[in-house]
């Protein structure tokens, strides 16, 4: 396929869409799938067949529409452009919607999501522009929304260097949490001299409560493929791997279909869009290890080895897959590439703060009224996210803290609600931007218990290669367990802090180095809660059950004995 044919395909897709009078978009993303979307789709299709409205009324299974806490979601589009969004739809309700909308009547007012809901109006959708709008399994839908146009532009109008430069100018930074400037990374791999180079998309998202990457892969798989192909052209790679977490079956299935469809149309493969650029993409499924999201472990896993991290340097840009320079980006980072080339890097750089540009996807969960996936401009304050986009705290809850960055991040307390969300500000607060998990907690959450939960997660997910992480997390968890069960004594917090420092500085990879963050952040802002647990046997949030009594620590007794033995010896 060449660029003219791509344009034709785009026009045809738009025309086909225009012929449909009413379109029922049914959210087919994992949250809605599990709350009953297939039954709704079946009911709608049955209804259309019964009423003989095939052709003029269509049902489209799309990606995530948000807000996920109010699924299953259905959006009805009329040819004129008017749209109505429905929440918590049932199959019976779907029949009613079909009857009314097919007859050009107003739908039932119940279950309508107001279009001026802050959840919708306060978002800025770049990476998620197609999410909930296109059928992820239909490549024509994506092309109809200017899909693969950016790839065509890059291949035919830009040099690889110009592509890297455009990404650098946009100010895009790694969305997996590290925040490394993407353009710089691309330049590094482009300049590296080697026989072969590789591009890897990291879709091994594993933070508890986070599902940005999953949603993106499920909702708009072609955008990631397009981003990877552009990256491949820019750095001089002919092969890409997309590494998907094993639990993401839906995402893997859709990506696989997307790769096949794109190859069939000549948008991937031997001669991409009739140019001399060659690029193939392979899908790799993880086997359920959190640590495989770490880039060196991920590469070991792709090469068929055990998912153990290796020391850096050498960085993947120097020596990655099969010792060749490798570009690794998070899927969300790659998802931003095509929109940046289409709308121009300046438009992307105009959003956000001085050092953090563009938009970021967050999985807003916890005690908020409207939970779900959101894409907001960088620099938005946490207060705007919680009280604006999220619609405020749930019934009867008051804000206590927000956890960002999952098990590698920290909590942000009430007094810092007005901090802008960008890489530097969150790091200064002792948390991290992370991949985008945002858990809002109310007064009923015990911060020691939260720290214990994340430590439990880390000790479970430690690969076991280095000691600070393998044994250190277990010992830290033991101390937290003692604090929450009532057997802790004075001095445990100090020992905990010592272990945190060791893990942070001496661990091999990011998993161990960031594992203490939830503990350190809660100690920083909620130290009095730790004291209340140890000194008063009281859990201010009422979560912990104190079933144990304070116990003298064996190590302390040993230390005292050693001390007295030593002074005796000195006496002799």
């Amino acid at each position, binding site marked *: 396929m060449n660029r003219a044919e791509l344009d034709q395909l785009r026009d045809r897709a738009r025309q086909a869409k225009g012929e449909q009078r009413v379109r029922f978009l049914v959210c087919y993303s994992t949250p809605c799938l599990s709350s009953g979307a297939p039954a709704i789709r079946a009911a709608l299709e049955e209804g259309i067949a019964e009423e003989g409205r095939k052709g003029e009324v269509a049902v489209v299974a799309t990606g995530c529409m948000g807000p996920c806490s109010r699924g299953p979601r259905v959006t009805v589009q009329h040819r004129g452009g008017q749209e109505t969004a429905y929440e918590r739809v049932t199959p019976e309700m779907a029949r009613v919607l079909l009857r009314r909308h097919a007859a050009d009547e107003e739908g039932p007012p119940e279950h309508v999501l107001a279009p001026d809901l802050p959840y919708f109006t306060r978002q800025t959708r770049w990476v998620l522009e197609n999410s909930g709008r296109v059928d992820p399994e239909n490549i024509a839908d994506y092309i109809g929304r200017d899909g693969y146009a950016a790839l065509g532009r890059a291949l035919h109008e830009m040099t690889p260097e110009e592509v890297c430069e455009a990404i650098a100018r946009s100010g895009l930074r790694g969305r997996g949490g590290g925040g490394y400037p993407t353009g710089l990374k691309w330049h590094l791999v482009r300049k590296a001299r080697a026989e072969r180079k590789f591009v890897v998309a990291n879709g091994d998202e594993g933070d508890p409560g986070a599902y940005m990457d999953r949603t993106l892969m499920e909702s708009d798989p072609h955008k990631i493929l397009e981003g990877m192909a552009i990256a491949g052209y820019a750095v001089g790679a002919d092969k890409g791997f997309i590494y998907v977490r094993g639990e993401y079956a839906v995402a893997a299935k859709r990506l696989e279909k997307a790769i096949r469809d794109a190859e069939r149309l000549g948008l991937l493969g031997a001669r991409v869009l009739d140019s001399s650029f060659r690029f193939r993409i392979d899908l790799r499924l993880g086997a359920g290890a959190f640590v495989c999201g770490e880039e060196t472990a991920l590469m070991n896993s792709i090469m068929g080895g055990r998912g153990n991290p290796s*020391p850096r*340097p050498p960085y993947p840009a120097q020596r990655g897959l099969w010792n060749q320079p490798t570009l690794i980006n998070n899927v969300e980072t790659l998802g931003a590439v095509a929109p940046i080339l289409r709308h121009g890097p300046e438009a992307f750089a105009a959003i956000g703060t001085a050092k953090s540009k563009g938009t970021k996807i967050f999985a807003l969960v916890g005690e908020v009224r409207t939970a779900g996936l959101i894409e907001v401009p960088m620099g938005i304050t946490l207060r705007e996210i919680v009280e604006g986009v999220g619609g405020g705290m749930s019934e009867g809850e008051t804000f206590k803290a927000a956890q960002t960055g999952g098990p590698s991040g920290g909590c942000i307390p009430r007094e810092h609600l007005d901090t802008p969300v960008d890489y530097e500000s969150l790091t200064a607060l002792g948390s991290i931007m992370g991949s985008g998990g945002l858990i809002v907690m109310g007064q009923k959450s015990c911060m020691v218990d939260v720290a214990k939960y994340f430590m439990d997660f880390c000790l479970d997910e*430690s690969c076991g290669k280095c*000691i600070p992480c393998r044994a250190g997390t*277990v*010992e830290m968890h033991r101390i937290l367990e003692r604090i929450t069960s009532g057997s802790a004594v004075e001095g445990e917090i100090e020992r905990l802090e010592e272990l945190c420092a*060791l893990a942070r500085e001496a661990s*091999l990879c990011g998993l161990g*180095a960031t594992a203490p963050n939830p503990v350190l952040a809660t100690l920083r802002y909620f130290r009095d809660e730790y004291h209340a647990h140890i000194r008063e046997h009281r859990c201010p949030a009422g979560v912990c059950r104190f079933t144990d009594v304070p116990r003298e620590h064996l190590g302390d007794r040993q230390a005292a004995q050693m001390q007295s033995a030593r002074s005796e010896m000195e006496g002799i």
Partner: protein
Amino acid sequence: MSVITLTIDGHLVSGRAGQSVLEVSRDAGIEIPTLCWLEGLSPWGGCRLCVVELKGEQRLFTSCTTVAAEGMHVVTRSARLENYRRMLVELLLAERNHYCAVCVVDGHCELQSMAARLGVDHVRFDYLNPPLPMDISHDLFGLDHNRCILCTRCVRVCDEVEGAHTWDVRGRGTTERVVIDLDRPWKESTSCTRCGKCVQVCPVGALFHKGVTVGEMVKDNSFLMDIIKRRRSAQPFVERRRS
């Protein structure tokens, strides 16, 4: 071969390009504690005992995996490093079961002597004492998981020197264990050549000769560098024959 010059603990030392910080340091007579590292095997970077500070860098680097570079400023001894090293040994001692008094390598154990060298006279952390099995199915050798510190020297020597790759690891975190073939009893291994290299390089009492009792197992890994040196001198002939 180009020569590089760097500063280690205030001393100006020189080394060959491509050498690790640890190698340069040892050549200069500056000892850095190690456990998982063994001359002749590929560096692993797991025990973290050899961490050093590099001037201008926030985080610590393992000297065994860091390539020495011209003008580097390395600090191998500081209060911070000594403290971390002690804690690492404490964590190792607490992790499984290291009661020296009933161990076959008592008196000849690298972990034991490392603890003594670093001044670890007590352990401040909880002893985890997980109930782990032993494998004494083999007629010559025994494996005691309770003593294992997961340094993977056995895995590496078997793969890199013997070429059998009988050993590997399974599980992760605290459930990680060294395994034979696909986790089967040693006796049933089809790849094991009974060479015993793994037993000799094991720094602790996890691998031992059957029949020894407390303190009787003395390990000798001097064969390793002999083999490697001979291989290096044979290399040109092997390559000539190939071409």
